[in-house]
């Protein structure tokens, strides 16, 4: 159980929750959250938006009963969090180009903030694509070297990757597929997948994805994969 410090709407339908937590958490990992007994049945996998010692932050979209309940929680309430699960993003030693779409931008903030803290001399650019209302842009602008924003269009139409950059993307699969296809083969591209999952630890096999190396579990083997492993590019 974790005690909620804050839980507020960023824009309608998008919430930011901060909870007490101590331990090691890597960017790109996720937790299974629940604040109810049997209904809905499953816990909800939510990616880590930010982590600083003692405080874990989730940015989540209200899409169904589980996230509706999460959105009603108040400071001082408790939420069950299991994790961190998944391997998270790999260590990158080059400049970074990050492409996020919608709520898929959530795990990218901790990635960039940590990357810049550990690599102050390296560049990090981020492309942010939103269907209608943008959010988190100022926060990204505070940690990234450059923010390229698109609202209502197709973010990958604007994408231009520099030769030395490693690319990391998270968002709708159609967007990640486009990123995987348009980025030159010389650049390394990592994609963070999303999948229906029941357990989060590799036991249920509900989140299995086909890869060139056979079936992989999004929760345990991922959620981050090199593009060539999961996309035909």
């Amino acid at each position, binding site marked *: 159980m974790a005690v909620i410090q804050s839980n507020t709407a960023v824009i309608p339908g998008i919430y930011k929750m901060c909870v007490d937590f101590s331990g090691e958490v890597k960017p790109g990992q996720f937790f299974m959250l*629940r604040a109810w007994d*049997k*209904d*809905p*049945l*499953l*816990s909800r996998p939510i990616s880590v938006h930010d982590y600083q010692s003692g405080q874990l932050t989730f940015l989540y979209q209200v899409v169904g009963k589980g996230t509706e309940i999460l959105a009603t929680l108040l400071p001082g309430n408790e939420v069950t969090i*299991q994790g961190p699960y998944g391997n998270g993003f790999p260590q990158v030693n080059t400049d970074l180009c990050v492409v996020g779409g919608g709520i898929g931008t959530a795990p990218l903030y901790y990635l960039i903030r940590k990357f810049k803290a550990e690599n102050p001399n390296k560049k990090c650019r981020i492309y942010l694509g939103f269907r209608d209302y943008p959010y988190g842009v100022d926060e990204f602008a505070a940690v990234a070297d450059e923010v390229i924003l698109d609202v209502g269009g197709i973010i990958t139409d604007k994408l231009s990757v520099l030769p030395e950059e490693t690319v990391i993307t998270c968002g709708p699969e159609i967007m990640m597929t486009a990123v995987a296809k348009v980025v030159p083969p010389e650049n390394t591209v990592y994609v963070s997948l999303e999948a*229906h*999952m*029941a*357990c989060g*630890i*590799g*036991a*249920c*096999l*509900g*989140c*299995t994805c*086909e890869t060139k190396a*056979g*079936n992989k579990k999004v929760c*345990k083997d991922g959620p981050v994969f090199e593009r060539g492993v999961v996309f035909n590019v």
Partner: protein
Amino acid sequence: MSECLTTKFNDILFKNPVIPASGTFGFGREYEAFYDLAKLGGLCSKGLTLEPKAGNKGLRLWETPAGLMNSIGLENPGIDAFINNEWPHLKELDTVTIVNVGGKDEESYLTAIEKLNAIDIKLIELNISCPNVKAGGMAYGIKAETAADITKKVVEISRHPIMVKLSPNGEALVDIALACEAAGAQGISLINTLLGMAIDYKKKAAVFDNQYAGLSGPAVKPIALRMTHQVCQAVDIPVMAMGGISNWEDALEFIMAGATCIQVGTINFNNPMAPIDIIAGLEAYCVREKLDNIDQIRGII
């Protein structure tokens, strides 16, 4: 741990009657991060087939009120990989490993069983009830004649006891259970998932590529409890029951209905500690009720 939960399933001694169910527990490795598997009465392996199986394509999970639908399709590494990669680890655990075996036809069942003759497992759960594979699986388990036929052939060649896992989707569950008992089964387990359907109205399509899929979780518990009671009343061999067991109270109800052991399935996904919580709850119940052994309330209904 006290002796009040020790349970005999035929001549197999379980330190307690609580066993994570096949398909919810992998080969145990994922849960070792949460607790010592030796605390379990036993564990039941992921459903194994003779050859490796990639499982079903498309969406595999769908949540329903108090239930979970799955269409995993028996994804597993195959019997040989199990024997080579998983069994060396499992045999060192101080708990009973049950191996769940599925098949696509008679030959694949029998060859798989023959391969398992080479290792010292305590009990085989013969899966003739998986609703998520097109060939074999549930096709054997919905009629008494076919269930008895495959059971008889498997029992004849297996050097391990055979517990047949029954489908709730069959024609007459008690008849099937009796037929399996007559064919030599040394135990019955039930229930496998209930065949259901989900439609995504937004996409105007069935959720699962196979259209139908298996429903589990608390939603199925009353049905599983009724079926457990009916089968326990009818057969003389022990029954291992499952279906929506989420806490010690649920487990106790199945034991009161006559189950010798209980399997814990879908709840493992919500609460990895569920089997341990259930063991603790049953133990505390025995102490409160001053039972020397949980046998004393088994089948009282």
